[in-house]
């Protein structure tokens, strides 16, 4: 079993690029990662592409622009976890010894749907009753607020923290701070959420180059290592479910910690799936950084802000960096690798040695979520 290292990263600024093709949204990040890794394009053993809605052969379409062809190219779809699930396949292939150098690119163009809510799977019976993603998270929020006494104002503070971070990140889709009053006074989307409680839709791509121990030793001896690579799916029930806890992430994070041989206290920085404000709080608890019901206390202590004990979403997270579904996992990976290498710029977490990425999502009736992928990176 070879260890797996990250030898290159690339990412474009997330935003709205309606006039670019999916391929033209994708290749710049892959090019940047290749140049950073200093690997020759034809030395790639395989390319994995994560996209949720990019259409057929997205990886081939992106790669061909850079003249990359003739190697295995695998497209992976797992809703919001698409590119992180793709990375998990690459991780398996390298650790098995089959491949030495693999590129992963996450790419999405949501502006092709013309704005508004994303197309939902019409076969899902809940969607046919009017379910939308903000409503699913809003039900979690309302129940959590009911059980733990969290207020709407406290919930809104998550958004303020996120935008404080995003304002420092030149690759974020939303690069401005918002006040508590702005968050609370914005247009309602799904009570208790206003617009600023919800991640924006947009386009983007991000990429990393992974390498086996053999290659990493040659080209980048100090490369960040992937200590855990984990994908899992939600547990189905048509019965009662406690929606104040994220069953899928609780399970996934335990498995990832075990694989990496670390615990919650060892994490220095994390990029987690804050698609809506409540999600960030619930995931503090799912990852073991706060006890059930105590996530707001952690937030308000400043521990999860830049300068705190465990900064969460220093990039701005989904709420500010943006969430082009299939690209999110790789954007998180790029952020964490650059953090651990000390080159995150204005949103650098000083001295970070262990980082976590977490992408989960996909609304399917009866599930917490359809998929969840967690990776742990170490210097």
């Amino acid at each position, binding site marked *: 079993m070879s260890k797996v290292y990250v030898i290159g990263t690339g990412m474009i600024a997330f935003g709205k690029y309606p006039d670019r093709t999916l391929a033209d949204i994708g290749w710049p990040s892959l090019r940047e990662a290749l140049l950073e890794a200093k690997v020759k394009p034809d030395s790639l053993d395989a390319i994995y592409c994560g996209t949720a809605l990019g259409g057929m052969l997205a990886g081939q379409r992106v790669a061909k622009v850079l003249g990359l062809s003739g190697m295995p190219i695998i497209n992976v779809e797992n809703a919001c976890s698409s590119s992180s699930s793709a990375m998990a396949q690459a991780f398996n292939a390298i650790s098995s010894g089959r491949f030495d150098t693999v590129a992963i690119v996450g790419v999405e163009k949501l502006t092709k749907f013309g704005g508004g809510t994303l197309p939902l799977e019409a076969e899902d019976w809940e969607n046919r*009753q*009017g*379910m939308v993603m903000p409503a699913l998270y809003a039900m979690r929020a309302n129940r959590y607020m*009911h059980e733990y006494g969290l207020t709407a104002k406290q919930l809104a503070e998550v958004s303020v923290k996120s935008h404080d971070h995003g304002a420092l990140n030149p690759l974020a889709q939303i690069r401005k701070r918002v006040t508590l009053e702005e968050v609370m006074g914005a247009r*309602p989307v799904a009570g208790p959420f206003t617009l600023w409680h919800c991640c924006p839709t947009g386009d983007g791509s991000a990429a990393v180059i992974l390498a086996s121990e053999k290659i990493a030793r040659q080209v980048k001896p100090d490369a960040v290592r992937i200590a855990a690579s984990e994908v899992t799916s939600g547990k189905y029930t048509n019965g*009662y479910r406690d929606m104040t806890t994220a069953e899928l992430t609780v399970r996934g994070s335990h498995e990832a910690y075990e694989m990496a041989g670390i615990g919650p206290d060892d994490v220095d920085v994390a990029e987690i799936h804050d698609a809506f404000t409540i999600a960030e709080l619930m995931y503090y608890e799912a990852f073991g950084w706060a006890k059930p019901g105590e996530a707001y206390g952690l937030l308000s202590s400043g521990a999860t802000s830049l300068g705190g004990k465990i900064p969460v979403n220093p990039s701005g997270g989904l709420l500010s960096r943006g969430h082009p579904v299939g690209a999110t996992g790789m954007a998180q990976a790029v952020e964490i690798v650059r953090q651990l290498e000390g080159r995150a710029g204005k949103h650098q977490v000083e001295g970070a040695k262990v980082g976590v990425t977490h992408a989960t999502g996909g609304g399917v009736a009866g599930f917490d979520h359809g998929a969840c992928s967690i990776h742990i990176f170490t210097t």
Partner: protein
Amino acid sequence: MSTSPEIVADAAMAAAEPCFVAPELIDASGGAPRLVAGKCKACGALSFPRAPVCAACLAQEIGVAHLASEGVLYSFATVHQAPRNWIVPYHLGYVDLTDGIRVLAHIDGEPKINGRVRLGVGRVGTSAEGTPLMSYVFTPVSGASA
């Protein structure tokens, strides 16, 4: 592709009548509406919507069963932004029925977490052709709390 005149006429007639969003989920034949579920003939597991195969034991003989018509509102959301056809804002909630099944439904009335709710039928939207869209809905039972 051309559409035959007969089919156009049918569609126009249908448009005059309210139409159910998911008619297979509701049985109104006995007067009061009931939610239609499946019940595995081998192991008794309930499925909603009625499944073609049992998720508990993989048996394929699934009978028809009715779900309980009362329950407790586990949580809700007030949706302001939704795909066309839905009348916004609307309350959407998870109802924990007394028989152990959780059902997503429109809540017709002021939703209250842990409040008791009862099954009914109501209008939830308007089709692209202007037809009222109906579905099962749950209505808070006034003053009651579980």
